[in-house]
């Protein structure tokens, strides 16, 4: 019953708020990170921000961390002053839900993830506001708070780590362009991966 209520409530919330749209202001959110710190998107106004929806139980996420692709993207971005927020919207009831300490141990410990913050979104509120469907699902926000990119990380829709080398990485391209003050040429792409387990 709680799940159903939650779905209805969430759907209502999402319907009420404006959905995230490229070219429009990115919806604000306040989430708690794995260390208990509250992080608000609006705190980073004036900076470029990357949102990465993630769940270490998903083979597609494993593809990008196992190959080191995601970590190198995170390091390159944060070195240029970009704020990288990894968000886990997996519901507590899902079989692969990890509580904050275990999530932290997996992604930042074992996998040496290099995001600025690893955020918990068990209610799915932030995920639904961005209409995040899959893990990974990527977003880029410019210093004015405008959403400039939304979609899949690259053009090779597979779980095979070998495809990382030959794939065109849309997030890297979007960051390069927006950091150079240019408009993003590929502003949307097809997200691929595991469906986010909202409920």
């Amino acid at each position, binding site marked *: 019953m709680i799940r159903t209520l939650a779905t209805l409530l969430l*759907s209502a919330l999402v319907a009420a708020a404006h959905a995230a749209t490229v070219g429009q202001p990115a919806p604000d959110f306040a989430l708690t990170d794995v260390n208990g710190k509250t992080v608000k998107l609006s705190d980073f106004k004036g900076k470029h921000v990357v949102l990465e929806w993630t769940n270490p139980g998903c083979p597609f996420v494993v593809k990008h961390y196992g190959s080191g692709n995601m970590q190198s993207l995170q390091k390159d971005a944060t070195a240029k002053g970009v704020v990288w927020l990894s968000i886990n919207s997996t519901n507590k009831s*899902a079989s692969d839900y990890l509580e904050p300490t275990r999530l932290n141990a997996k992604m930042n410990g074992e996998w040496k993830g290099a995001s600025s913050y690893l955020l918990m979104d068990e209610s799915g509120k932030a995920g639904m506001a961005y209409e995040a469907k899959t893990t990974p699902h990527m977003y880029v926000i410019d210093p004015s708070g405008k959403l400039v990119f939304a979609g899949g990380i690259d053009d090779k829709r597979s779980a095979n780590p070998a495809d990382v080398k030959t794939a065109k990485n849309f997030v890297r391209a979007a960051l390069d362009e927006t950091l150079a003050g240019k408009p993003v040429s590929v502003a949307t792409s097809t997200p691929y991966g*595991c469906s986010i*387990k909202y409920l």
Partner: protein
Amino acid sequence: MHVDTSAVKRHRVPAFAGPTSFVTALIGLLGATVLHAAPVKTEHAEVELIAEKTALVVGGKNSIGLSIKHAPHWHTYWKNPGDSGYPTKVTWQLPEGYGVGEFDWPTPKRLATGPIVNFGYEGEVLLPLNVSVPASAKPGERITLKGKAEWLVCKDVCIPEEGDVAVTLPVAESGKDVSSGAAAARFTAARAAQPGDASAWKATLFAAPNAARDAWLDITAPAGAGKLVALDAFPVQEQVSDPSVQQVYRTERGYAVKIKLVDGAKLAEGFPVLLAATGAAVGSKGESSGTTLATVSTASFTLPAGATAMTAVAAATGATAGRTDLTFWSALALAFVGGMILNLMPCVFPVLSLKILSFAQHSAHSAAGTRRMRQHGVFYAVGVVLSFLALAGALLALKSAGSAIGWGFQLQNPGVVWALAVIFFLIGLNLMGAFEVGQLAPSSLLSMQAKHPGVDAFFAGVLAVIAASPCTAPFMGAALGFALTQSAAAALAVFAALGLGMALPYVLLAWFPKWLDRLPRPGPWMVTFKQVLAFPMFVTVVWLVWVLSLQAGADGAAIGLLGLVGLAFGAWLIGSMRPSVRWAGVAAALVAAVLAWPAGELAQTATTAPAGKSSTAQWQAWDPALVAKLNGEGKPVFVDFTAAWCVSCQANKRLVLTRAEIEQAFAAKNVTLMRADWTNRDERITQALAAMGRSGVPVYVLHAPGKPAQLLPELLTTGIVKEALAKL
């Protein structure tokens, strides 16, 4: 750095699993055989390449297909996977000159996991492929078509899997007629599931830019298309519209579907969409689905006045999702168990009492007695099974003649209800001792019965089935619903299983009469017991006359009752008078029955009378459009598919649905209550039942807004209803 890649489960299976050299040798021996590589088996799916025919014909139409058998509740994806996932694909390694086309995707299903909606397949699916054979191919040479198949198989979690698939076939010369392979039937079925051409359904996508990214698909139905019960629109292109948002309206010219475009949707000039329908055909060749290309317009769209919301697609597809996807064997098993439970249902119980009485009479412990009882049991079983087969045969024949009917159809005819009332009344009179059958029957018949006591048992079986027909037991609904969508042979097998299940307890008791030792010794108590059993019979008669009164009105019921009085008079004459008067009794009974028969005739005129008489103020007549409208407004709806002649329905209604606590529970959740009354024939209801995979009543459906329709069990308890309501 250590990275855990265990989540990526790769399943690589060599194209030829097993002792290859032996297989190769075997090919040499057998010559023209098709060789399938061993299927790729994972925990979640079994995938293999199969061929339709036994050879590849030069210049002919050659079909192979990727067969995917999913583990229960797991699915793979359509060409547009929806919110997540990706379509199944094969990377080919083909001999020079050979080519394999794209998959001919069957119509997918809408699969929802929370707010994420996908399009894909569950159960068994065959994705057919066309093979082009070069003109230079040499007849007789063996060709291996192989490739790497990759598929994403998901339940709530997703596992990307892959494996090598192959099929080896000999080449046949151009124009040669080659025989079909073992899997040919699956190709026929897969073609039947292909969407047809729906280009006669003119559609326009109105995509005026707006913040909510709402868009409308305006569809003009071709002339003579008929009214669809439900319509589902599947966008063929990926990442254009949000699969989880869809509301269908019926308009004057056809249908209007409200959808939501995704952010950054790239709309080409045309928007291909697959329309899947319930209630009438969409495709050109009578398929229930077809693809059409909508013209894209940036004009805005206003829903025309008078448009009505249709059975929410969520509800329609939800019903399909809730539809039990049975295999033949599980349907047989369900039918068998359902048959056993049938003995305990309220309409069979009086007859069961009769059987207990018969046991009490037979429980002699001599060898001859045992033999007679076993014989009795077998004949009873034969009677039950043959009666079910006869009913199934009649049902199938009527269905193939185009009647929209389902299980219980026989009771939609008031003549049959009246005949049942007469039979039960006569049994009651007989049990009371008003007359003995022996007083009537000619001596030749009596001697035959003495020689063949099985005849008696056979007709007891027939009677049990007649009495059972207004009842559906748990499991039975799903099994019969399945049976009626299958071939005649499969349907008859399911009905036979039902009969066997129903007869089993009786046969067991007849075989092991020791189990009856707890019954008291035969004696005068049996006369009393027999008389007591007359009362359940009379109660059954009261119920049948009540059904008759709903079908044929008060006049019809009164005539029927008068007929029963005439029968009672006849029985009394037979039982108490001298032999010469007995024949007057038989005559009186016959006259009474004939005079009362018009009760059935009257009913024909009354069938159009409002069938919802049994509805109380709270319950309103079922209206699928209103269900959709209320759901759209966020209000849940409960629908009771029922019939006056359905005893299980009445039991559920009296014992559960009309209880104060349940009525309060409905009120507390603001649930609108609707009743679909199938007492008389109603094509709309028959179709709605069919859409849910059922062929008879009772069916209880809870339509919660934004969720698939939920089917409740055939036997309700207050607990089941409360639990379902609590989830709202």
